[in-house]
């Protein structure tokens, strides 16, 4: 049985055919891709891959500081990155000589750990952080208003050393080694121009970005991302995900803004919380993921309905209520987070949680109001700590190989 689905990204009558299976990706128009390779996501297209691409299983996210003052060197590196990214996403080595094809006296061009591995649906998505738009590269007047720093939210315990950054690359793949390989080679190409500021590995996607995907669970054991924006919802995507002409500077039209939050979960205390309390905090039942007002996962939560005791079935402090679009002027996010476990913390506790990723058209109209509500009222705050924060502008995709990351920004 061969089930295949072709999704036109650009709107124009996207076809949602059968169910999962190999997903062919095509960036423009509504026509099906001709003969897509089974595990390769096209690097070229109207949109950057890695946003509404069905969420892969693994993440390596990396933020860089630019350490050169030489604008031309930075642009040159972005060109080199683009070429390497275009190759690696198609399952090729970072450079044409590769890991073993070069001179024996020279260090190999590619680091080699992905030799023999498939492309594994690798996507590489670039973003530009607020700090890039300072005096160094003459980009001050190209900074979008949407890239204004996020506010400090109540209860934030943000560590600046693992937050922010001038550039970011989100590497997602279905094989962790493929994602790590990509980031490692980009970091190496960038030596002397950029320096890794922080990075994060993630596993087990915590959101679905396509209706073809089952809703996964986060480390609290609950389904996460049931009400996520999905690739098939093209009208909603145009309203909530993609930056429109006139929203800000032209170079971001067709792009999207990326928010990252590393959310440490206090796993051990959560685990000894009663099922009743866990479900009350989340507002959904743990088994099915249904809102406490309904029966099925995808039933719309009804915040008005009350139980026999007269109390709302979905508590006023429930996460699902506080985060819901109806409670936030319709604000919606495309979430794309991953679970993380960074070993243990020296006190025997799991150093674990959710690496939250969301894409949106304007973080200050979408992420910020939602997170403000959550930070003030969410009962879940007793079990989580926000320890890192990032905001990046992800430009539109590159139509073809004569373009490169950042060209329109630096033009």
């Amino acid at each position, binding site marked *: 049985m061969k089930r295949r689905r072709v999704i036109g990204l650009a709107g124009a009558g996207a076809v949602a055919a059968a169910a999962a299976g190999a997903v062919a990706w095509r960036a423009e128009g509504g026509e099906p891709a001709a003969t897509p390779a089974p595990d390769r996501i096209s690097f070229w297209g109207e949109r950057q891959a890695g946003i509404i691409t069905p969420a892969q299983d693994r993440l390596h996210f990396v933020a860089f500081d630019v*350490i050169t003052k030489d604008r031309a060197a930075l642009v040159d590196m972005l060109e080199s990155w683009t070429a390497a990214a275009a190759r690696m996403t198609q399952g090729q080595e970072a450079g044409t000589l590769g890991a073993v094809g070069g*001179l024996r*006296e*020279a260090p190999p061009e590619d680091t080699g750990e992905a030799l023999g591995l498939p492309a594994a649906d690798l996507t590489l998505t670039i973003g530009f952080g607020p700090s890039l738009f300072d005096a160094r590269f003459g980009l001050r007047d190209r900074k979008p208003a949407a890239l204004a720093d996020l506010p400090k939210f109540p209860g934030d315990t943000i560590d600046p*050393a693992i937050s922010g950054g001038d550039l970011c690359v989100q590497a997602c793949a279905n094989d962790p080694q493929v994602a790590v390989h990509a980031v490692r080679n980009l970091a*190496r190409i960038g*030596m*002397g121009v950029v*320096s890794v500021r922080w990075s994060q590995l993630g596993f087990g996607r915590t959101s679905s970005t396509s209706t073809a995907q089952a809703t996964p669970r986060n480390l609290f054991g609950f389904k996460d991302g049931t009400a996520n924006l999905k690739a098939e919802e093209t009208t909603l995507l145009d309203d909530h995900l993609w930056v429109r002409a006139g929203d800000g500077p032209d170079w971001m039209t067709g792009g999207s803004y990326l928010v990252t939050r590393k959310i440490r979960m206090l796993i051990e205390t959560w685990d000894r919380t009663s099922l009743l309390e866990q479900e009350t905090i989340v507002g959904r039942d743990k088994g099915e993921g249904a809102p406490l007002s309904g029966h099925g996962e995808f039933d719309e939560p009804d915040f008005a309905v009350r139980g026999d005791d007269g109390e709302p079935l979905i508590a006023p402090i429930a996460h699902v209520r506080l985060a819901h679009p109806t409670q936030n002027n319709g604000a919606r996010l495309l979430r794309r987070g991953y679970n993380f476990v960074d070993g243990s913390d020296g006190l025997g506790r799991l150093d674990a949680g959710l690496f939250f990723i969301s894409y949106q058209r304007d973080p200050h109209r979408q992420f910020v109001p939602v997170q403000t509500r959550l930070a003030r009222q969410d009962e879940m705050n007793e079990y989580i700590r926000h320890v890192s924060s990032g905001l990046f502008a992800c430009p539109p995709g590159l139509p073809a190989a004569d373009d490169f990351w950042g060209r329109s920004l630096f033009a």
Partner: protein
Amino acid sequence: MRTPRLIALVAATAAAVPLAACGGNDSGSDAASSDKIAVDASDTECRVATAESAAGTTTFTIANKGNKVTEFYVYAPGDRVMGEIENIAPGLSRELIVELAAGTYETACKPGMIGKGIRNAFQVSGSAAPLTEDAKLAQATKDYQRYVKSQTGALIDKTTEFVNAVKAGDIEKSKALFPIARTYWERIEPVAESFGDLDPKIDAREADLEAGQEWTGFHKIEKGLWVAKDVSKSGPTADQLLVDVKTIVDKANTVTLSPVQLANGSKGLLDEVATGKITGEEDTFSHTDLWDFAANVEGSQAAIAALRPALEEKDAALVKTLDERFAAVEAALEKHRDGDGWKLHNTLSQADLKTLSDEINALSEPISKVAALVAGK
């Protein structure tokens, strides 16, 4: 010291190289044909009697009339060291014999042995034919050999002073000399490391030892000086250190490094910085890692400088990049200067160390391309 590596820098059939120009001779020369050029060095001046000479062997007589220990260098373009005399104490006179082809050079006195020195132009006229590519590579190995020779001379001098201070029980003086003696060691460490078990005897860190292995060398004395604050029983260790240093110096001066080995050595020294000095693992008791850091970088630069004429022919853009990035490393390190020396590693912030690490990475990537270039590929 680092753990044993696969790449020995020294050719298996190491042969003695007769050196036309040897630094460090205190007495007259057997090679000089032209008149000696007097150099009056003070703490603020460097007066070279003449600014030109004929191609061939030139002898400089450097008189240190200042109050600081000084050094004298002859540089070819790009700061390629054609000859140098280290460690000229106040009141002393030393000679430098150097063989120079026609071209433009610079002389430099370095009072206090830091910085770029007080420089003067020096013109050599004559009819020396330009070197062929192979000859340039051959010249590179000779130039580097001369560098090793100058460093090993100073290494013995300063280790002797250090050992004497330790045996005299003068802890403060010993502490002051420890990083200085090590500077000469660290500049040529890839050469020294090629002599198998001598390197660990001189430079093993406590953490490197195998169970039952006897600990000797610099770092054992370092622990005595900084932790026990007692070196009354360190005499035998100190004596052994000097014996081992002298043995390794004898060996180092009998080998010739191939151009590829030079290139790998320049990279190896930066790898030493990246893995041992940035982290503070080298001098874990004294925290004088930045002395070793600076010395490793200088040694790496000396190897590249020796290869420079050949590299410029093969890839001038790479040479330019290396110049810029060496300068960037120096500038980043210079922020941590403290008097004639360096700040202690444990006083640098994580951000300081990251900046240094970034600059070393930025330099090491292009340097890793040099070996393939000089291999003629």
